[in-house]
């Protein structure tokens, strides 16, 4: 009888040991998975007004070498209440985070957003240059 109990206990313990030895996936301070990817760029950029309609007069020009996003907005766009939307390469994240409306009205000091790669080792600041259509 004792022998059986011993075997059962051992059988139960083995999975614990097995789970304990498995390597955890690393996560960053936001609880996001840190991966092996080192790609770091913006693939698409959109700018929405307070009515959630686009304010771009044409497609945004993203220069991944110069790390700039040039976007022309319609005449009369309310630059103080805009919602930017970034599409990033897989696993990358953006800093600062976009939590709501962003004030882009200071055209002489363009906003800078930093893209952080999937492995969290490459950081590239992108400058968002806005021009207003005449």
């Amino acid at each position, binding site marked *: 009888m004792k022998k059986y109990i011993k075997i059962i206990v051992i059988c139960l313990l083995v999975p614990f040991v097995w789970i304990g030895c498995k390597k955890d996936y690393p996560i960053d301070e936001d609880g996001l998975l840190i991966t092996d990817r080192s790609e770091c760029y913006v693939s698409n950029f959109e700018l929405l*007004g307070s009515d959630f309609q686009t304010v771009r007069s044409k497609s945004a020009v993203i220069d991944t070498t110069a790390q700039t996003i040039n976007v022309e907005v319609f005449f009369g766009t309310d630059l*103080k209440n805009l919602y930017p939307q970034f599409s990033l390469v897989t696993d990358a994240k953006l800093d600062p985070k976009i939590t709501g409306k962003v004030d882009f009205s200071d055209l002489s000091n363009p906003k800078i957003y930093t893209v952080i790669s999937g492995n969290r080792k490459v950081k590239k600041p992108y400058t968002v240059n806005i021009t207003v*259509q005449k």
Partner: protein
Amino acid sequence: MQNKYFINIFFLLAVLLLLNACKEEEYAIPTTKDALQNDVIKRTLGPNLVGLNIEFAYAMAIPKTRGKLISAQVEASIEGAAGTYLENRSFYTNGSGQDVGVKIGEPSVTEGKITKVNFSTDTTASTLRYFYVVPEAARGQTVTFNFTANSSNGETVSYSMGPYTISKMDMKLDLTVRDGNASYISIEDMAVYNAADAAAKAGKIDLVYLHRTSPTSFAHALVSPAADKQYLPGITLPAGVNNSTKVSKTYGLRDQQLARLQYAIFIDDLDFQKLNIADAPNFAINMRAESGVWVETADGKYRAYIFVNSVNNTNKSAVISIKRYAL
């Protein structure tokens, strides 16, 4: 010994339960309640606005053996405005989906809070519509309704509905604004003025409607008089028209009462109370049909929602509807 009895009793009870559970209940046609009965549904949806109807359907019936319907009445806690009535026709829907009315008595008589219809035809079942026109006295208050039916055998039944809150806001539909003519909008008056009238009511003018073809993104615009001159090209404002009204653009917020479209979206008092457009600009250009603007007047007295029902590029005009809330 005792334990054994308990076990036996328990076993018997369990078997009984089992038997009961397995018995299939057979459907039986419900028997009619042998009395005068009634029921009410509210037919209107959305906020209850002053000047608009609240519509109910009041159904009443009595078994033929007991008698017939004699009268129906509705008592509102606040006297309805002129036009409040209880339908004197009972409607049914025919094969082609049309509502057909069958006259059951003379038109209703309203005395104070009570609206009454006397049946003149031999009727045992009827559904009457009740239209309550919300009076000015009810603004911001709650209203309750008491529906009562009487039958020839002396029976009386009643049904209470409510309380319903009457909104504080006002509504104005289908104001036509035209570039260079009726282009001065007053939220306080909920009206549109031309330049001459605007000069006389300078302090009340909150927005200017204009249409420009260049730049192409200008099109239809609602601009406050104090906005930057580049948003008022070619406009000479009447003397004293200088309010800086906050406007925040929206798109697709098709309030059912303003748009009268199929979307069940309703803007109510609460939306105006919670509205925060402190950082909004004082102009909105490139307005399209089915777009709108939230507005807060310069003196902070009113908040409003202006919905653009339609635009006309050739005539340089638009049709707008307004909901307004006094703070």
